[in-house]
Each structure stands twice: as C-alpha cells, then as structure tokens.
C-alpha cells in the first residue's frame, strides 16, 4: 500500500463537531486539539516506522497516543494495565518492539529497549507526524492463563464493521464502554467514536459502578457497550435509574435471555442487541431481535463473513478477522481454508443457534459433559437472581459435580434464599438433564469479574 492510500486515525480528528471530546473520570480532551498537540515526550515523527509498545496507566493517554501513532509507527502493541510482566521480554521479542511509550518507565527498564518515551497530560503543541505507514495493530488475547498470544490487525480490519454503520449527522452519539479500550471490545467503541464523529466517555479502573453510571448519565452517553457481566453488575446498582442510553450492546460473553430481558426492563426505549466478536475472529455479527442465540440463517449468510459449525464449535472466516498471530512458534490463526475456530460451542434448536459455552470450560460429570454457561443461563432466569457462576466440585464417584453460586438481584430477598434455591433447582430439573443440575447452590454477595469484563471462572 502506498502512503497516499493510508487513512490514519488522525485524519478523523477534525471531522464532526468541534466540541466532541474524549474524557475519563478526571480529564477531558477535545479531539480537534489532538491534531496539533501531543502527549508524547518526543516529536511523534521520531517514532516513524518503529514498533512501539504502549504501556500507560490511563486509557485517556493511551487513546491519544494511538491516534498520534497510527499511520506513523510500523507496529503498535496495546498493553492492558494488568499485563503480566513476567512475559514482558517475550512480548518484546515476539512483536519485535524497539520503542516503548510509557508513564511507568521503571517497569520497562533492563529489557534491552533504548527508546523509552514518556507520555502524559497536559498536551503540548506539536506538529503531527506525516502518515507514512499502514500501522499494524497488535493486541493481546484475553486468555486467563499462560503466555498471552499477540494478534495482529490492520485498521481496515478493525473498522470493517463500522463503515456503513451510519450515525445520524444532526445528533452525533456520545459513546461509552465498560471495556478498557486496549481490548478488542473497547477498541471497537473507541474507533467508532473517532471515525463516526462522536464524543467518548472512558471507563476508569477502580471506579465504583455507581459513580461510573452517574458520570455516564451526566455526560449524556447515548451509545454504550459491555459484557453481560458488566451489565449484570450495572443492573444491580440503583444509579442505573438515571441513565438513559439509546443504544445498548453486549459482547464478549454469552448474552442470555435473563440479561437481555433485564436491559429491556431498564431501558424500555433503547435499541438493545448482542454482538459476536473476538480478538481473533473480529466482529462477527449482531443480533437485534432481543432474543438469546442467533438465527440459523446467519450461518453462511451474514454480510462480509462466512460461518460454519464443525464439531459443535463456531468457525468464522471474515475480512474483519485478525490476520495472524505474531511471534516465533506462534500457532496458525486460521485453518487451511481461512476459518478461525472460535472455541465457542453452539447448539441448534428450532432454527436458532444457542451458545452453550467454551470448549475448554467443560465440566465432566461421570463422563457426561456440562458447559457452566448453559446451567448459569437457567439459574439466571429466576427473577431474584442477577448473576451466577457454575463450577466443578471434585467428586470421588463421578470425578466432578456441578455446583453453583448465585448473586441476588435485591437484598430484599436475602430472607428467603431457601425458597429461591428450591425454585432455581426446580427450574434446572425441568429444563436440564440431572447431571447438569447443581448439587449445591450457595448465595454470595458478589462474583468477581476479570479486567477483560468476563466472569472470573478460575478464581
């Protein structure tokens, strides 16, 4: 690709209203100002053609740095704040990193990188660097254990689902996401805000959900995304009552009927949908009919994407998929025919596919398979339950048993957990084979959600 064909993110800064901003809990920056200022400690052009690792404490500075470096750097590796530093040397080697932009330089000393660039606010005047490179965007997979895999995207692939996603010109949206924008789901929203002429309100680590919801309401957020776990937590908070988004999306985990119905109740007039996307496969498809699962007709038929189900798992071939894993000895991202095996298991019932769980999350009860998510979906149907987690318990007889923890939607129900437990178990027995019915259900105050917004299953 010749430089003149590259359209970098900075190209979009002056599109749309002058008043659009990028904000977090403490700061606000106008997009138009980023065009002639910089957060970097060197001239942006000094990073031209470099392979840059971004490790910053805030999403705000990360977002500005991404805009400054897209079209300038050869590669840009987005490190989420919880990156396991024991893999730092591996990441640097695999991604051929030769410059690090960070506000915690002490963490990145001694790894053989000479170019360590500071970054932070306030912005200072600087000339934007020329667009010379089709920057390769490198992201880490959100796997819970072991060495993270590096996935490479182009900006074109990352934004493939956005082009044609038309947004009304007269009322530009204000975007928000519960995700961190250094992860695939959050980056999708950030890019929509930059490309689509809207403003964006970032999440802040450690911020109480009530404060976050109040901030979203005050900033007038209209479009927002998160995982079902993010949304279940939000729905439990009284501050949800003052928040009135027009457009609500779920992704990253299975959106079961209970959470879709809960959002419908909370936001009766909003467009509510769930999207299938992953760091590797990209944005797959969106489901906007208010029901869990997706129409079987989407298989082979969705725009820009070919899907098939093999051995129960969803396989996706898409122009929006990542193009490769990066690094020595990295496995192949796609099979010989170009399909990504998502590892997400689906079941066909009455012309609709339902997600039942992850292939690697199966619990084996005496030789019979159980997906925790399919049991959680049944437990979550009980109106008194907001979220649940199903896990394996060791058994000397069947190897494992299924047990569950549940969080009540309202503290007012705390006095009747016995009756609720019985009702949940009756639901489970009515809709699941016996080996999938939890042997025990414990009520807990809360369930941990990981930094990537997913229910913590290995805690």
């Amino acid at each position, binding site marked *: 690709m010749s430089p003149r064909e590259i359209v970098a993110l900075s190209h979009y800064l002056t599109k749309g209203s002058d008043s659009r901003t990028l904000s977090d809990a403490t700061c606000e920056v106008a997009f138009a100002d980023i065009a002639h200022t910089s957060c970097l400690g060197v001239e942006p052009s000094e990073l031209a053609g470099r392979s840059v690792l971004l490790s910053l404490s805030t999403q705000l500075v990360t977002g500005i740095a991404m805009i400054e470096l897209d079209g300038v750097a050869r590669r840009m590796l987005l490190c989420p704040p919880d990156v396991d530093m024991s893999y730092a040397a591996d990441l640097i080697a695999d991604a051929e990193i030769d410059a690090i932009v960070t506000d915690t330089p002490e963490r990145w000393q001694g790894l053989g990188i000479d170019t360590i660039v500071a970054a932070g606010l306030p912005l200072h005047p600087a000339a934007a660097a020329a667009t010379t490179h089709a920057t390769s965007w490198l992201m880490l997979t959100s796997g819970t254990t072991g060495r993270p895999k590096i996935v490479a995207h182009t900006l074109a692939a990352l934004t493939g689902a956005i082009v044609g996603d038309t947004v009304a010109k007269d009322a530009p949206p204000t975007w928000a996401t519960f995700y961190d924008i250094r992860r695939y789901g959050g980056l999708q929203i950030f890019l929509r805000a930059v490309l689509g002429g809207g403003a964006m309100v970032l999440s802040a680590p450690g911020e109480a959900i009530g404060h976050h919801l109040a901030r979203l309401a005050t900033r007038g957020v209209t479009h927002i995304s998160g995982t079902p776990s993010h949304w279940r937590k939000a729905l439990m908070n009284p501050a949800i009552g003052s928040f009135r988004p027009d457009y609500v999306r779920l992704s990253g985990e299975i959106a079961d009927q209970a959470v879709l119905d809960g959002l419908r109740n909370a936001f009766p007039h909003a467009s509510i949908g769930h999207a299938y996307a992953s760091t590797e496969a990209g944005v797959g498809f969106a489901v906007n009919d208010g029901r869990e699962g997706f129409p079987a007709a989407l298989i082979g038929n969705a725009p820009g994407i070919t899907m098939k189900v093999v051995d129960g798992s969803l396989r996706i071939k898409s122009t929006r998929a990542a193009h490769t894993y990066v690094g020595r000895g990295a496995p192949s991202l796609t099979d010989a025919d170009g399909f990504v095996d998502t590892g997400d298991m689906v079941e066909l019932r009455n012309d609709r596919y339902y997600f039942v769980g992850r292939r690697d999350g199966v619990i084996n*009860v*005496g030789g019979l398979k159980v997906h925790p998510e399919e049991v959680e979906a049944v437990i979550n149907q009980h109106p008194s339950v907001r979220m649940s987690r199903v896990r394996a*318990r*060791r*058994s*000397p*007889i*069947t190897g494992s*048993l299924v*047990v569950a923890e549940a969080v009540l939607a309202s503290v007012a129900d705390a006095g009747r957990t016995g009756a609720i437990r019985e009702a949940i*178990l009756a639901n489970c*027995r009515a809709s699941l084979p*016996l*080996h999938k*019915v939890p*042997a*025990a259900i414990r009520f807990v105050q809360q369930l941990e959600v990981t930094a990537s917004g997913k229910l913590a299953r290995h805690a």
Partner: protein
Amino acid sequence: MSVRLTIVSAMQQVAQEQGFKTPELTDDLLLHQSGFDSLGFAVLVARLEDELGIDPFSTADDAFFPETLGDFIGAYENVPA
C-alpha cells in the same frame, strides 16, 4: 442429629429431588438396589461432606465403596471428625 439420621434424611432428600423412591432404608439394603445411581451417590456424598465435614471416600487410601447401607453409614461413623 446423629450421623445415621443425617445420612438417611439426605438420602430421602436426594431421592425426592431426582424423582425416585427409595426402598426401606435398612442396614442390609444393598446399595445397588437403593435406587441411587452414581450421580445420586455423588450428590449424596457431596451433601454429606457439607453437613458432616467428612468425605470418607476421598480420604480413604484405597478406593472402596460399600455394598450395603450399613457399611455406607459405618464409613461415616468410623471416620474421626
């Protein structure tokens, strides 16, 4: 509640949940005629571990499983709590 009573009551509870009737729960009842399958026993043993704080089948050095209800109850009574 005695260990015996706890076990008998848990057995009736699990049988009711899993939708079968137990025969009379006497010491000489052969467990394979109790109506419990392996899943039923797995749930029962887990419940008893929660109630009594012991699982004699996981702590035993040798894998064993009793033949009669009397032996089953004995396995719990003979484990120091």
